[in-house]
Structure formats: structure tokens, C-alpha cells
């Protein structure tokens, strides 16, 4: 079973990564993550917003109300300089972890 720390780390990396491409509102963020991970990562409303609020409190992302072309108001999130700084080591950590797991499973299957 995947521990909550790993789950949270994955979710944070996913959110920071999609926001690196540009500002997004919550629904669009969840949709992009699901699409880009081919359904492997799926955020429900209940999972997404507490995570977004926590990341906002930490100063990694910043939300502001924006009006879309169809006149709808949505709270859009964007990466802060602190979030950009956080993304690099986080990405490296996960690359190392997955690299290690890949090596391990290859050895196990050999």
C-alpha cells in the first residue's frame, strides 16, 4: 500500500508540474492531470482542494479570481517563484525514487 507521504508527494509534483505550463483553475487542473497521466492519477474535488489550499499556504502557488472568455469567474492558480524553486528538487527526488525502483524490479525479475 502506498503511504500517505508518497501519495501527497505525487500529488504535489503533479500539481506543480501542470501549473508550470501556465495558470489553471481547479477543474481544468484535475482534467489535465488525468489526461496527461492517462488516468493513472485522478483528483476528485475532495482530494484536490485541500491540497491546493495547503500548497497556497506554503506559498508554492497563488490563486486569484479571473473571468474566462465565456464570462465565468474561476479561481486560477499559478506557480510562485517559491513553487518553481520547489519543483526542481521534488522532480529530482521522484526521478531518483523511480530510477531506484526500476533498477530494483529489474534485478528482481532477472
Amino acid at each position, binding site marked *: 500500500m502506498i503511504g500517505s507521504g508518497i501519495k501527497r508527494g505525487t500529488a504535489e509534483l503533479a500539481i506543480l508540474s501542470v501549473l508550470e505550463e501556465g495558470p489553471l483553475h481547479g477543474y481544468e487542473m484535475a482534467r489535465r492531470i488525468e489526461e496527461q497521466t492517462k488516468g493513472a492519477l485522478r483528483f476528485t474535488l475532495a482530494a484536490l482542494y485541500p491540497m491546493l489550499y495547503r500548497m497556497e*499556504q506554503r506559498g508554492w502557488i497563488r490563486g486569484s479570481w479571473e473571468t474566462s472568455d465565456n464570462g465565468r469567474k474561476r479561481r486560477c492558480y499559478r506557480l510562485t517563484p517559491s513553487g518553481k524553486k520547489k519543483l526542481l528538487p521534488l522532480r529530482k527526488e521522484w526521478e531518483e525514487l523511480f530510477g531506484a525502483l526500476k533498477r530494483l524490479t529489474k534485478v528482481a525479475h532477472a
Partner: protein
Amino acid sequence: MPDWRELVRQRLSGLALDAEEKDEVQAELAAHLEESYEVFCKGGLPEKEAVHRTFEQVADWRDLQRRILIAKRSGHPMQKRVHQLWIPGFLTMALSIVFLVTLQKLGFNVRMVSWRDSDIFFYAPWLVSLPFLGALGAYISSRAGGSRGTALLASIFPALALTLTFLLMFPIDMIIEPIIGRRVDFNIVAAVLLKDGIGWILVPGAALLVGGLLVHLLFGRRLLPQDTAIG
């Protein structure tokens, strides 16, 4: 179509946040649900099924409420206060002092206005600069996530600091003057405080506030997290 805002409001009624923040969370979640519902409807689901599938995203509203509260309170309040109030406030104050001293060194004179037998001093070139400084303070505070109130407080920070100084001067004067053997005429002290209060606190404070309000009007929707304009 269901009134998503009202449905979320009912389910998150116990969210122990301040009114503005609570309203904002409810608006944001309602917007998410509304969008989910519309996508389900466009995908061909009947309305009832679409509503059911939309609500499936939250298994336990009480648990969601609890987790939102924990997340919202997870920041460091002291650090937030420093970035949202103290840094922009002190920066506004430092710049206003530097600008005042520079103008004085450049030889700009104080303008004197007579009012009820007393003269009130206005430093016109300095007053002109204050809306810009107030705007700067409000902008920095808002960028750091400060609420509307905090941003306006940061914009008028120099006037608040000066008010505090004035308020402290009065009791200190009352203690020191008798010690050094001088008789205190409270009428004179009060008149001076009122005169200087208008020239150095009220009018500059209003000028700073104009700048803060302008930032709020021009950039508020984009910058301030408390904007709850969702319809």
C-alpha cells in the same frame, strides 16, 4: 440545473473560517461542481445521473470541511503577517521618509494654510507622492496574498506609525514636563496635536489611502484573494 452555490453552502456551513474566506471556498467548490455537472450532461448523462455523479466526488462533506480547515490553517501566520503587512508597511514608511527628507534637502518649502487662527502646514510635493507610495504598499501586500483590509493597512502604514508616535508623545510629555519643572498647558499641547495631526497624519493618511484604493480598484480582481465576485 441545481443551485451549486447553495448546495455547497449548506454542506460546508460549519466551515470555521472568516466569512470572506468561507464564501470564497464555497464559490470555488461550487464552480468546480458546476463544471463537472455540465461535462457529464454534455457527455449524454440524464440530469439526475449527472447530479449523482457530480456529488460522488465528495464522499464525506464533513471530512472535506475538516481537511479544508486544516489546509487553510497550515500556513505560518507570523510569516504571512510579515510578508503581507510589515514588509510593505515599513517599505512604504521608509520611502515616504526618504522622499520627505530629499524634498527638504532640495529646498521645497512647506505650504502654510491658516485655519481658525492657527496655521496648518502642508508639504505639498510630499503629499503628491503619497498616493504612489500607498499604491506600492497595497500592491506588495496584495501580491503576498494580503486581504483587502491588510493591503489598505499596509498602504496607510506611515500615517498609522505617525499616529502612534503622536499618541505616545502626549502622555510622555505629561510625565517629562513636570519633572523638568515646566508647567504644561494642555490646551496648547492639544492644539498642536490637532494641527500637526491634520497636516502630518490625516491628510497624508488620506493621500496614502487613495493610492491603496486605486490599486484595489485597478488590480483587485486579479490580485486580491478575497474577491468573491462569483455570481
